[in-house]
């Protein structure tokens, strides 16, 4: 599968990563290499083999539905930066984590 420079830019946009023209070209080479490896793997005959969803052949352990977590908001929010407007204000006052304004 051949990738184009437009594909790289679209993927970068979806991942919210800023990529310059030069980086895009370099990334294109790298990703094309990875896809080449995948193409090589896809050439292997896997007829009749059940896809493996996990490397260990065990099943999920289940947890009882009992509240075990207590409120740690204060501790967690000590490490939460309130970005934007150059403010160093912590988010604790309103209890919310703050992020730059998102409007869809």
């Amino acid at each position, binding site marked *: 599968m051949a990738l184009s420079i437009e594909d790289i830019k679209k993927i970068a946009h*979806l*991942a*919210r990563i800023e990529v310059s023209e030069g980086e895009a070209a370099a990334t294109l080479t790298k990703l094309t290499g990875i896809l080449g490896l995948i193409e090589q793997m896809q050439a292997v005959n896997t007829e009749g083999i059940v*896809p493996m*969803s*996990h*490397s*260990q052949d*065990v*099943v*999920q*352990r*289940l*947890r*009882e*539905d*009992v*509240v*075990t*977590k207590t*409120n*740690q*908001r204060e501790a*967690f*929010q000590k490490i939460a930066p*309130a970005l*934007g*407007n150059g403010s160093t204000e912590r*988010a604790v006052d*309103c*209890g*919310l*984590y*703050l*992020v*730059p*304004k*998102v*409007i*869809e």
Partner: protein
Amino acid sequence: MEWEVVIGLETHAQLQTKTKIFSGASTAFGSEPNTQACEVSIALPGVLPVLNKEAVNCAIKFGLAVNAEITPRSVFARKNYFYPDLPKGYQISQYELPVVGKGAVTIQVPAVGKNAAYEKVVNITRAHLEEDAGKSVHGAVEGMSGIDLNRAGTPLLEIVTEPDMRSAAEAVAYAKKLHELVQWIGICDGNMQEGSFRCDVNVSVRPKGTEKLGTRREIKNLNSFKFMQQAIEFETRWQIETLEDGGKIQQATVLFNPDTGETRAMRSKEEANDYRYFPDPDLLPLEITEADKARVRALMPELPEAMKARFESEYGLTSYDAATLTASRDVANYFVDAVNAGADAKPAANWVMGAISAKLNVEEKSITESPLNAAQLASLLKRIADNTISNNAAKQVFEAMWAGEGEVDTIIEAKGLKQVSDTGAIEAIIDEVLAANAAMVEEFKAGKEKAFNALVGQAMKASKGKANPAQVNEMLKKKLGA
């Protein structure tokens, strides 16, 4: 050209567990922001998800309730997208191997105008377990968005249908049925205002008689059945008009605006539909054995379908009546309570589906809030059955009981509604009517059947509605030699 609308639904039902799907944090609604957001909910590095047994039980219950295949080994996958209320950068969901496979629900589509009510089977494609995201709060802090992660990690069951529905009425009937079912089996509280039950509706149109599906648009987050109806009707019209004007439908996500009654494109799907799903290495496959299913089945209440069949065989109700009564567990319980309190099944069914349901609709009440309880309904029906009051008088008594004016016998007495079943009294009335309406009697004798009904009407009027209509009929026939 005649068009056909094709509708499929995706419903998110919030599961009634005490804790989150992958951590022991509480799921209680309405707490202070982030007080129920543990290290797993806020996605601190190095934390690991551990699956909640009760969430799995809920999924099994749903699978059993819709006669679905339950996957012996289902797999959790990461759905990758970027949004601040999803701090991990991915939602843990299920993709290729969902916990619940193909199933079906039978819906009752109510009569609309000239179209009679009918039954329809809606096929369920799948249902899968996943976690909810957090909530973005705008306006709390100037220039910033606030993130509350209390809801992050709340267990959801996403239930997906085939594109089987062909009208807004069918889609709403399905959504109502599903809404009732998840509450019936106790896996979801069904609270639409709080977002415990939310529907996304996929709508497309195609020329009637063609097979190929049109391009669909997805109406997001409808939180009432009324809005769902309006949104689908608007969207359908919009798509048909666009196509008839030579336009094309672009696949898109749209939002419904309740104020204008319109749908509007939110984002074009092309941009964002690459979720890069892959199996989550932090979670092992979920195994569900026959023994697990049997254990869960034993905990489940009688299902609506089974209860419907029982109502038909035990009470002799029609399939339609039985289906209507079992559309809601509360309604079914009310009916059974009335019958157990001595009401005959058929009239009890008619009153519950008719007068009571109409009143509740007008007053926007549920049956559990009915001012007339099941025992009171039974007492009223007994007075009809023993001929104390006529059906017509019963309506007045019903209104009075509904308004809280007292118990049945007190009201009958106070309003003087007792039916006249005394043969002598009725005969006197009929003689009077016959004497006063000689013309009608002649008409009847000349073969005009309608005149008979007119005479019955006159007799009922003369008795101020209190005469027993069956007796009036019978005696009049005798007198006229009919």
